[in-house]
């Protein structure tokens, strides 16, 4: 399963819900305002770090760059481009968007 989160973790609880309900071995792709969840030093860092024991976390590079956050991505997060986004969708049998 590929989970896609596009909401800021400090504004909405979409990432929280996703991490609570994602099964072990799932992939979580952070896009749009969701990419703040892939950055260092914020109040959800510990939660995301902890989740990475069970799920693989990706973040869309274009959205990190737009927000000036590309230089502070959490260790263990894989940054992908739009082609990588397509590959993730193709690789996983199903996907769930957490709006």
């Amino acid at each position, binding site marked *: 399963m590929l989970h896609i989160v596009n909401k800021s973790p400090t504004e909405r609880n979409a990432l929280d819900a996703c991490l609570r309900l994602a099964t072990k071995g799932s992939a979580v792709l952070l896009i*749009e*305002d969701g990419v*703040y969840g892939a950055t260092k030093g914020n*109040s959800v*860092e510990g939660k995301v770090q902890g989740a990475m024991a069970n799920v693989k976390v990706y973040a869309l590079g274009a959205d990190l*760059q*737009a927000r000036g956050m590309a230089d502070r991505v959490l260790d263990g997060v894989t940054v992908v481009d739009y082609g990588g986004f397509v590959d993730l969708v193709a690789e996983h049998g199903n996907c769930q968007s957490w709006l």
Partner: protein
Amino acid sequence: MHTSSEDMDTDEGGVIKKFMFVNRKAPYGTIYALEGLEVVLISAAFEQDVSMAFVDDGVYELKKGQDTKALGQKNFSPTYRALEGYDIEKLYVERESMEARGLSEADLLVDVQVVSAAEMADLMAGQDVLISF
């Protein structure tokens, strides 16, 4: 002719009100940040006492190094530095919001006054008009 309006005085040298624009949204994911900035620029034409507050995800609007080329959206972050030219010089950032996002004053692209939540509360309480984005 008698006019009784005190609040709607539009004569030259009329009432100057304190307007605060409260920004609580990250840029690009929604249109709020850009729309808010445009309204602030419009407000400059009315010669009011304008300030901007950045709280919660609104602090992200001021993050240095924004580059939207790959996104195909306009990077409006340089506009915050142009506000001074419109006599909009009161930019307040709530320290608690900034720190909860791992940001410091050095991460911000324009000079601001970093204030505590209690100070921000007092600033808000002292306004005549608050407009939220």
